[in-house]
């Protein structure tokens, strides 16, 4: 069958705030429950200003590295980890998720293992199309060094994908759409599989 050309993306615009957020959208786990951590950060523009109208989604394996295929993200029961969440930033550009540290997934057949990471999709007013990136855990230098993506990046750029570990066990990771320390964004099209 011939390849169909994909439908183009468009900006999420300014008015997603009454449509995309939902109750407990950013709580992959109930806050305070066993094993839960806070993942937080700020979204900045090219002038270094926090932007108040971005929305992020995360998608990740559970703490054992299992890919979860359970429904219930939109109507959370407080017990089922679905691996996916959504968080609109607040007025100060800050987003927060409650989640778990992702475990290492089984590598793809014939491929080297990736270090554990959280997959991220970014949407914002003024951003013409969604962007993909990753949040890696800061521990396990060896796994980070061997990771196929991280090892293909300059050390300076590589650091934009690695979260900081907070004193309370949580993760902090800032996203910079442009400028100094611009976050590495990913293109999966045309990549070899």
């Amino acid at each position, binding site marked *: *069958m011939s390849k*169909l*050309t*994909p*439908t*183009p*993306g*468009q*900006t999420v*615009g*300014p*008015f*997603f*705030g*009454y*449509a*995309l957020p*939902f109750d407990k959208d950013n709580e992959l786990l109930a806050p305070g429950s066993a094993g839960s951590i806070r993942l937080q950060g700020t979204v900045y523009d*090219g*002038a270094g*200003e926090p932007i108040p109208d971005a929305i992020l*989604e995360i*998608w990740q*394996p559970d703490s054992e590295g299992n*890919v979860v295929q*359970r*429904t219930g*993200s*939109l109507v959370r029961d407080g017990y089922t980890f*679905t*691996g996916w969440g959504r968080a609109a930033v607040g007025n100060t550009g800050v987003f927060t998720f409650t989640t778990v540290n992702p475990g290492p*997934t*089984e*590598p*793809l057949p014939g*491929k080297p293992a*990736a270090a554990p*990471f959280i*997959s991220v*999709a970014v949407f914002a007013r*003024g*951003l*013409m*199309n*969604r*962007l*993909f990136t990753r949040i890696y855990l800061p521990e396990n230098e060896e796994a980070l060094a061997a990771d*196929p*993506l991280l090892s293909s990046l300059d050390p300076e750029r590589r650091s934009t994908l690695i979260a900081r570990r907070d004193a309370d066990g949580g993760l902090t990771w800032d996203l910079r*759409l*442009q400028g100094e320390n*611009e976050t*590495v*964004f990913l*293109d*999966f*099209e*045309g*990549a070899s*599989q």
Partner: protein
Amino acid sequence: MLLDENAGHHQDDELVPAAEPHAGHAPLDAAAETQADLSAEIQAIGDAYRRALKDGAAPEIQPRLDFAPYRSSILRHPTKSLHHADPETIELYSPAFGHQDVHALESDLTIQHNGEPQGERIIVQGRVLDGDGRPVAGQLVEIWQANAAGRYIHKRDQHPAPLDPNFTGVGRCITGPDGSYRFTTIKPGAYPWKNHLNAWRPAHIHFSLFGTDFTQRIVTQMYFPGDQLFPLDPIYQSIVDQDARDRLVATYDHDLTSPEWALGYNWDIVLSGSKRTWTENEAFGDAGDEE
């Protein structure tokens, strides 16, 4: 989600119209740039693209991230090129959604309140497909839109057009086994925005879609055929290729039109080709736990 409940709170707290109903008729902000200025910029970018095409450049199929006529994009686009990456395991899956997540009635935006919304009732239906034309079944589709007067139920939309107490403008559904989706709604109005003086968006419905792989995740906008605002709109024009832009325009479908009831529009969505090409069941065992 109880849409009624949401809408009620918002209307009470934050969505009251501007105190001075005519304030919006004054010149907006310091937006001194005219449509002619913006149209000239758009034209120049389009001309350069068409020259490049003639010289053998590959057609562009996505919007440009760096598209200055949309002023808000200037500080919000990456300046470094996207980094090619092979998707890892997690990226070759998508979150699972089901009927637990979405009530069947959420696909009808005209029944979320006590009365009928104002405007032209429409049916929008189509299929979500992958790059090989295979249906994306059982996945989440979310939409949001302005009402018939071009006003959003959002505190940042304060332009002097009426809210409709019977219209929230948010819908969801789960695609069928053939990748199909269907919404009943009203045709949204065009609305002004402050990109430049006298800037108006063509009527559109925002769509959010998931594929079988997280790498296929997209948010986009569906437009209506023949809109006179297309050439003037920096967001639509950020897709510089005419064929690519056309992919965002629904087709009027008289067979879908329902007598004495609603006009029908058809719009299929093709997600990017990157997807699981190997059999996940062979590699990982059956990960499926549908509902």
